[in-house]
């Protein structure tokens, strides 16, 4: 199961991921036409500054997700793959999930009483934010591979 993983050291805070996320959730899927759409697309990833270090925040698809526990209708649910997905049709807009998300990444839909959250770009092979990241700070990998890479890097640094 691949996850969106973040190499914080590489993030420059360019916000390319934010733009790519917006475009990928627009009607036209094109930056130049997306800005003229009646309903402006909203992003699902937020680059924040934590003590002057830029960090991208997105849905971590928590294992025992608090938003799923808090959801009244079951609009937020876990899939077999462990993803936290959202069924807009049964959401009543109580915003319990906004209240309880530990990362503060569930946002209100600007146009209706619904929420906006990362859906891992279901119609793409690689999520838009990962594809757009110029420094490869965002990676779409197996957790095992990611930590292996980290270990390798650490060992090279102390051995060489």
């Amino acid at each position, binding site marked *: 199961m691949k996850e969106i993983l973040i190499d914080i050291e590489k993030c420059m805070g360019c916000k390319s991921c934010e733009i790519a996320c917006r475009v990928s959730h627009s009607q036209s899927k094109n930056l130049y036409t997306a800005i003229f759409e009646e309903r402006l697309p909203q992003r699902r990833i937020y680059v924040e500054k934590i003590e002057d270090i830029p960090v991208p925040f997105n849905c971590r698809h928590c294992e025992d997700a608090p938003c799923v526990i808090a959801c009244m209708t079951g609009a937020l649910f876990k899939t077999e793959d462990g993803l936290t997905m959202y069924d807009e049709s049964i959401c009543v807009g109580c915003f319990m999930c906004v*209240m309880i998300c530990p990362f503060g990444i569930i*946002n209100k839909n600007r146009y209706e009483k619904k929420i906006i959250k990362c859906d891992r770009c279901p119609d793409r092979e690689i999520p838009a934010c990962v594809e757009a990241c110029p420094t490869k700070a965002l990676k779409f990998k197996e957790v095992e591979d990611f930590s292996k890479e980290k270990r390798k890097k650490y060992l090279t640094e102390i051995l060489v």
Partner: protein
Amino acid sequence: MKRYVIIGAGNSGLTCAKTIRKYDKNCEIVMISDENYPPYCRCLLTYYIEDKVDEKILFENNKKILKKFNINFIQGERVEYINSTLQKVKLRSGKEIEYDKLFLGIGGTPKISKFSNDNSILVTTLRKFDEAKIIKSHFKKGNTAVLEGGGLVSLKTLLALYEIGVKIYWVVKSPYILSFIIDRESAQIIEDFILEKGINLIKNAEIIEVKNKIVKISDGKEIKADGIIIGKGVKALQIPADKEFLFDDGFKVNEYMETNIENIFAGGDCTIVYDIPHETRRKVALWPVAGEHGYFAGLNMLGMKRKYKGSVQVNSFSVFANNIIAGGKKRIFDDEREKYYEVSFKKGKVFKKFILRRTDDSICGYVFINDIFKSGPFYYEIKGGGSYERNFNRY
């Protein structure tokens, strides 16, 4: 094969069952509910009244969960007696069920106010689906309803009835609405949202009499009404057992969510837990908090020994187009001024307020009105005793 018995089909019971099934695929899970329906969310009942949610949304998802998590669900049965020595529960029908671990998520029953009533109009509370059905069929456009109690149930019922076109009088005993949930300043803002829509708010008053469809209020007003809905909070339920439970308006549980009787756990509206920001033990009767209780109880019933630090009161609600999220301690009493201070800012319709401790500037409460985004982390800041400074740049 181990058998886990869960009494109550609220969020604590359901989350407890789901947690147990996640880690133990082979055990037997029995869930007992005294209502004749599949598990449902009580917070959705007001949405049901105003037709935003139908029975399908209310029940279908939980029916699927019962099947997916292989939960043996017994509905319409009340547990009459717990025999903790023989590890058995006795149902009203006489049937006995043995358990290895027992979870009590039995919730509470609404408190009722005492006024003289000649039964000329409908007087009800709103906690169960049956009551929601009665309210839905009783009130029609142009009717008049009197709501008593200044809590969230009354507010949500008010909003639902307003959508139907019912004329509303809201009678509140305290000097401002939602006094258990928010502070006076924030309540004032919310009161304005309500008054704008032409709802009659009567504060510092209570219902004293109902006679010939006339509701008499303590401030002298007389209202011709079609029904009264009471929302004055809940009283925890109790089940008789062979040993005595430590009970004081709720089962007293330890940090593992276990009651004083071995192998019996409790969670949700029927428990007394540690309230972190208020630094006291009390009942925190809320939907998401009940889920947390169920989750930790589930892990401990499996023998994982996970400590539950305590609960934080946290609410999310909307008043017309305004969204409000409030958590932790929101009021500073006069004798607490040396210990706490508050920071607030208002810009247009947006209002934010934080309550902080003087000793280390750590946060212990917040109110967000109309800009609720990124309020989630504050809930965990309060739980973990984190600082306001660290998160401030993000907000």
